[in-house]
């Protein structure tokens, strides 16, 4: 498309190798938040996704599954490595969400946390002498667990996703989906999609951020299938001579990685294998920028006599001085 044809080999494509080497040395960061009522299998799913014991449940030795009174956030970080690629994975858990009798405003601590991470990044970015790599604690993805009721979205689901869909990429999943037959699953998903559309909730991958046709086709396929119906486990069983991850019941073994049984593999592909970088990009270029514009407008409005210009590097110093007011 456009550009000149080269009449010899220049070696531009070697830039990809250089990039790859650099990023491998530097490593990746990925922050995933899991939200849902207690007992929906959040910790188990995260462990299964990343094939290691990364969740809060496996880390705290005296872990007791008690329902906590208030919503508080707990984050656990690990560095996992695969084929020379290092990833710093942070799992942010939200115990206490939706467990009380009165759950009004139980989403407030979560919204506050996400905004705080954006704020941290923003202040770091606005410093005069910035770090080479700003530590990225922003939440790249929020996995929201829906209980497999088979009916529709509940009021608390709608309220939460409405608010958070604007500031973070939400990936809704149907938890413990082994209680739904295939037909029930399809009906349930359809009803959920209707409800999401009716309430104006945008979940990842958002339609507006598709860059080109190829993306749109790929994402449309995903959009037809969300929310993914998942089953998580960390136990292995023998099936046809192979060791598979699964849940053994009296009527059969539910294989977690078998796409005929549940959609765990699809979720894993989405989150880890194909769209991980995209999630980070959407967070950085879209959600973070929205936050930044809003914040700067706010602080500009509070200081009289300044126009809301997008900042360039030259006037960083001036802004720094004025924002101290």
């Amino acid at each position, binding site marked *: 498309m456009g550009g000149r044809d080269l009449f010899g080999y220049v070696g531009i494509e070697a830039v990809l190798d250089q990039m790859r080497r650099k990023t491998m040395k530097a490593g990746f960061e990925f922050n995933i938040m899991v939200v849902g*009522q*207690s*007992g*929906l299998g959040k910790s188990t799913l995260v462990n299964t996704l990343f094939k290691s014991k990364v969740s809060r449940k496996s880390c705290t030795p005296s872990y007791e*599954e*008690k*329902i906590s009174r208030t919503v508080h956030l707990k984050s656990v970080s690990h560095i996992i490595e695969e084929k020379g690629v290092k990833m710093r994975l942070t799992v942010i858990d939200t115990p206490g969400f939706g*467990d*009380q*009798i*009165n*759950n*009004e405003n139980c989403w407030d601590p979560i919204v506050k946390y996400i905004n705080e991470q954006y704020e941290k990044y923003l202040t770091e970015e606005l410093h005069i002498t910035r770090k080479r790599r700003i530590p990225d604690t922003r939440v790249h993805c929020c996995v929201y667990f829906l*209980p*497999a*009721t*088979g*009916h*529709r*979205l*509940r*009021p*608390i*689901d*709608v*309220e939460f996703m409405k608010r958070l869909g604007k500031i973070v990429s939400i990936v809704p999943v149907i*938890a*413990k989906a*082994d*209680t739904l*037959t*295939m037909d029930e699953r399809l009906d349930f998903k359809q*009803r959920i999609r*209707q*409800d999401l559309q*009716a*309430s104006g909730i945008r979940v990842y991958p958002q339609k507006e951020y598709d860059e080109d046709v190829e993306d749109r086709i790929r994402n449309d396929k995903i959009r037809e299938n969300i929310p993914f119906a998942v089953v998580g486990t960390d136990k292995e069983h023998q099936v046809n001579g192979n060791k598979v991850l699964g*849940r*053994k*019941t*009296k*009527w*059969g*073994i*539910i*294989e977690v990685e078998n796409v*005929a*049984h549940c959609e765990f593999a699809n979720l894993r592909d989405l989150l880890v294998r194909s769209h991980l970088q995209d999630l980070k990009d959407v967070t950085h270029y879209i959600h973070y920028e929205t936050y930044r514009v809003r914040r700067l407008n706010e602080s500009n409005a509070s200081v009289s006599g300044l126009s809301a210009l997008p900042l360039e590097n030259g006037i960083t110093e001036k802004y720094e001085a004025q924002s101290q007011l």
Partner: protein
Amino acid sequence: MIIHAVLNLCLPFRYRSVWIFDQDKEYVGFATLPNQVHRKSVKKGFDFTLMVAGESGLGKSTLVNSLFLTDLYKDRKLLNAEERITQTVEITKHTVDIEEKGVKLKLTIVDTPGFGDAVNNTECWRSVADYIDQQFEQYFRDESGLNRKNIQDNRVHCCLYFISPFGHGLRPLDVEFMKALHEKVNIVPVLAKADTLTPTEVKRKKTKIQEEIEQYGIKIYQFPDCDSDEDEEFKQQDQELKASIPFAVIGSNTVVEAKGRRVRGRLYPWGIVEVENSAHCDFVKLRNMLIRTHMQDLKDVTRETHYENYRAHCIQSMTRMVVKERNRNKLTRESGTDFPIPMVPGETDAETEKLIREKDEEVGASACTAKHRPPHSLQTEQTVRPSSDPPPDPPDPPCEPSLAASPLTPADRSKGLKSFYIAIQNNKDPYYSLGCTAHQ
């Protein structure tokens, strides 16, 4: 032997033992009494009111359909999320007449859509508790009325409470609901959608829930203890039944083909769950308990314990109000005969007053003899300790039951509020207390 026979004849019918003497000489013939009762009740038919409560999406309707092999919820429409935000807890009733081998059953299912669905569920059990009280109040009115031939018994006999399998045991909402209702209705906890749990998880959850029920002092429905002369197999079955609370159930509206047979079940890519297979779930246990073995006992407990508690409190608070009125009116020299009693006008005031006073005495007497029981425990034996304190005095508005008199132990059930019955017997229909005719 003769003394025994004489004593037998003195007791009301219910407590007589069928004693067959020497075949020819001393055979009286009342051994056929149970058959007569049986024939009469079959002709009359039975009724049973079952309430199902729990968050939506736990399979309540499916289970009801599976239990009674009907399709009560054919035209149900699910509200979408927008409509749900403004939904409040409703109480809906479905009645269906079932007949099997000549025995008629009028089954009423009370459903509670909207329970536990909102963001703020504070006091969402209030409408459920009010409904149960209303039924008690209506029955109380009917019972105290003049024409008691065709009383409709709408009292809730059993409440199946659905516990979500997705949590770690009981949620705060579950605890609050059960504590609010355990003194009004027989609660049978049920672990819903058990096909999402492996056998180990089922066992773990059941133990956890049993512990929590004991920890919070929730008095669920107690199965009556076996008589000591029952055979070992029966006793063992009874033990198993008690240990399986809460019942882990799976319901299904569809019939699938499994190993060549057509069974009620759910078809998954990884296997078929059979609802009536006791290796898969406790549905059969629940059905047997609810319908085949304990239906009459559930009704008896409702009638003798929950309803009588309600009635006692109602009368207590009414007489208290009457006394207050009387004291107030003494000053103004008006006759204190304006009773706020739900009795049909037509009875003379003097008689009503005498009735009130007598009942007041009996309430005082029975409340003192009502045994004080330690918080309910599932496994240990019930010990009965007489309480020597006078009953506490709650200043309630009329017919709002408070929890002053504690319910009776299972061992006491057969004796019940005997004093009540005897008192009533003195100036009312003697067959009233037998409970085998008008009270079903």
